[in-house]
């Protein structure tokens, strides 16, 4: 419980969460060093990393902690957010992290912490929001974190849900179809 409260605090100040996480541990636990494609390095404990099926399988296969692992296809920003998500949810039993239980509860609402988490992505220094959402979704898909994939896809769906067609085209960079194509689509 102490650890969990600590995590809550960490997620509030967000940034230096990973480092504090390490310090708060009493005994040394298995750690994993990750280096992203843009040369940012993160150290996470094994339990956090195992939220990702990708790392879980990898750790099972290698039977031990490998040397600093280079994560391809994932940017530093994305990995930071992913670690933030994982270190909160690795202790959260309410939030299912496997595909079957996620599928069976389709009408699940986004939790309070998750909502704040998504809103923080949105607020990141004025950049186009959806790009970050989509980028994070792609990273989550690559690292295979079902809970995060669910959260991200739900958020994207919520974003495009009330928007008119023209705006969706603009957001997702879909070329406006020619008149003839549009006629076909209208049918």
């Amino acid at each position: 419980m102490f650890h969990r409260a600590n995590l809550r605090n960490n997620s509030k100040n967000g940034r230096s969460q990973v480092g504090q996480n390490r310090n708060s541990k009493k005994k040394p636990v298995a750690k994993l060093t990750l280096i992203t494609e843009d040369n940012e390095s993160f150290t996470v404990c094994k339990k956090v990393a195992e939220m990702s099926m990708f790392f879980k399988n990898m750790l099972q296969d290698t039977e031990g902690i490998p040397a600093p692992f280079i994560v391809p296809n994932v940017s530093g920003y994305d990995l930071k957010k992913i670690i933030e998500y994982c270190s909160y949810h690795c202790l959260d039993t309410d939030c299912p992290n496997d595909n079957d239980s996620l599928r069976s509860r389709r009408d699940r609402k986004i939790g309070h912490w998750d909502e704040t988490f998504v809103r923080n992505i949105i607020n990141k220094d004025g950049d186009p929001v959806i790009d970050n959402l989509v980028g994070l979704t792609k990273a989550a898909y690559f690292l295979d974190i079902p809970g995060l994939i669910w959260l991200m896809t739900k958020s994207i769906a919520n974003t495009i849900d009330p928007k008119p067609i023209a705006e969706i085209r603009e957001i997702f960079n879909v070329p406006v179809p020619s008149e003839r194509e549009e006629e076909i689509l209208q049918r």
Partner: protein
Amino acid sequence: MSVQPTASPPLHNPPPLPFEVWMEIFGHLDFPSLVRAAKVGRTWSVWAGEESLWKNLCRQHGAEGVETIAAAGEHADGESTPRPPTYKALFAAHHIRECERRRSKPLWASYDDPASLRSLMMLNGQAPPRFGASIICLPPVPCAQCEQERGVGGAVSAAAGSSAHGGWFWGEQRGAGTSAHTSPVALSAADSMLPTSSLSPATLDSFSGIPLLRQSPGTASFNFLRASTHAAVHHPRRSVGGFSRASVILHTLTSGCELGVGLKDFVPRVQIIRAPSGILGDRERGDGVAGLEGLAGLLEGVRF
């Protein structure tokens, strides 16, 4: 963001996502959003038409006949058996049915009002047992046309072009489904619960210009695509004679079905009940339409 004139032209440049992720995203959308998403672009329309999405929607909304598709899939042996309708068609039929149910306005009759009691007797064939309340709801007037029309996929509503949900959606559906496998959802006459002798599409055609799709004999029937609202009501006098225009209008008014909306003298219910006599014209006398002073007057000419 559009207010910044200095912004570079491609405002957004999200990285491409794999197909599975798009399916997850579309899986969170509901029916209207999914249809809208299909209009965004060609790729989007292919994605939004994915059968697994519609299968999930069918499951969620409890559309009838899902297990029939599964069963048909098991027994499919090439050309001899007709292909089952797609999940998309199934959901569309379900959606139209739901809209109908929501739109239907039951007529009300009162025991204290002899005129409406008379109309009630005309609909039911007998006076219903009197319960405590003096107001009774008349059941939707059933019709065989409606059943058949449900079966062939809302041809009438598409032709009338009057519905918010029907026209475009069914238009697409007819293009995608009906032409691909020859009339997949036509109901066979033998299988119909209703006596089809009471049905005369020629009469409808002649005065409304609505292209009713004819049923093709021998095609297998998919009963679940029928409108259950109308089929559920048994009417003792239904098999007598053909349908008049007044009965079509009455049916439209009470059931929410759009059959009569395309008729050129269709007016909303409140008006038609209060309309002076003769709004349907004397030339319809042959069909038995009498005066329209009230509800009873409207019902007087209806032959079931």
